[in-house]
């Protein structure tokens, strides 16, 4: 009976070890290959390709050309992005701060972009001779124009915000000024009263001390201070 138990634990244990090994092995293997794509989906390319296949009803040639230009624009944007990312990424890789997988993802993106650019120029030539030579240039201008317009939108928002803030600030400053004036007035009033009281006291003291002849002097003083 105990030999049965022994055999089952033996086989069970072996199975456990083997599955654990295969799990770890597979995970390590996939870890070296799998990585996040550098760019999201290439939607403008997908639209162009889908439009080419559309039959009911088919698009006009101009619609196809527009779609190809939008695809070229995405490529230009990606080219600019890769150009910006490269130096930072290279230094990070050299310092060992990021893994190989990120670098591989970057290289793959570059490769795919080159391929897509070649496809775009080839497609452009099918519409018009030599369009392939200029389509990227045109797309680049269009990307720049679009950025320009985005800046204009940002500025419009900034202006609204700044105007609001300026108004608020002005109102606050005005309120503060009024407050300050009030406080200043109150202070002056207080001082005036105090001075008056003191004078009255002095007057009274003088009255007590001396006769009516010296009284005029005190009144004169009081008039001066109230001016």
């Amino acid at each position: 009976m105990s030999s049965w138990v022994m055999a089952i634990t033996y086989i069970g244990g072996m199975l456990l070890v083997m599955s654990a090994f295969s799990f770890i092995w597979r995970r390590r293997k996939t870890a070296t290959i799998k990585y996040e794509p550098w760019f999201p989906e290439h939607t403008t390319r997908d639209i162009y390709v889908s439009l080419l296949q559309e039959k009911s009803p088919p698009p006009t040639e101009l619609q196809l050309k527009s779609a190809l230009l939008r695809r070229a624009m995405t490529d230009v944007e990606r080219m600019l992005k890769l150009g910006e990312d490269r130096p930072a990424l290279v230094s990070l890789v050299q310092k060992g701060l990021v893994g190989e997988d990120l670098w591989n993802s970057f290289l793959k993106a570059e490769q795919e972009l080159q391929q897509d650019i070649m496809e775009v120029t080839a497609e452009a030539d099918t519409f018009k001779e030599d369009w392939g030579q200029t389509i990227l240039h045109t797309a680049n201008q269009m990307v720049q124009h679009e950025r320009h317009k985005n800046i204009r939108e940002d500025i419009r928002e900034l202006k609204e915000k700044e105007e609001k803030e300026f108004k608020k600030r002005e109102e606050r400053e005005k309120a503060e000024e009024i407050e300050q004036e009030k406080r200043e007035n109150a202070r002056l009033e207080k001082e005036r009263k105090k001075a008056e009281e003191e004078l009255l006291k002095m007057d009274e003291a003088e009255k007590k001390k001396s006769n009516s002849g010296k009284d005029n002097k005190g009144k004169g003083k009081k008039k001066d201070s109230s001016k």
Partner: protein
Amino acid sequence: MDNPIKQIDLMVDGEMIYCRPHHLETCTKCNLDFNPLNALHQSLLQINGDIPPPNVINQKLANQINGLKEEGNKYYKVQNYQEAIRLYSLAIDMAFQRPVWEPCELTRRDVSTCLINRAAAHMAINSWVNAYVDAEWGIRIKPDYVKGYFRKGKALMEMKRYDEAVHAFEIGLEFEPQDKSLKDALDEARKLTKN
């Protein structure tokens, strides 16, 4: 392939392209936006799809923009700032009418000059927020526009935002380290930040 080609469920409806399931140009459900494509198609229709070769420009438009700018400068010189601002604004709007396939550099040049001039006109009539925003805009499209930093800083100082003014002057000086007016302005702004 990282991003294999994906079939998009679209449809052609006359001059427009929509998503097929919802017949929408901008569809959040399909996560698709055909507006940029349709807009481009519209603008290409106006020239019959004949995209001119690079560096061909609409001279008429360029002359109009330039004319408005020059006129603005004239009014600025005789200190009619309101009129100058109006003309610069017209020139800017017109520069944005330039077809998207024409060299963007031209738009950048026209717009930034008009903006920096308009900033000066706004400063002349004590309209500090407008002056600041125009200068900021000019810098954003032409980051080496030194006058832009000067005017931005000056407007900020008038708004008592001395720290930001110092920052603007400092960046301007990075482009033009020997600029006397920038240096003086920076000294003044620094003094005021310390108070």
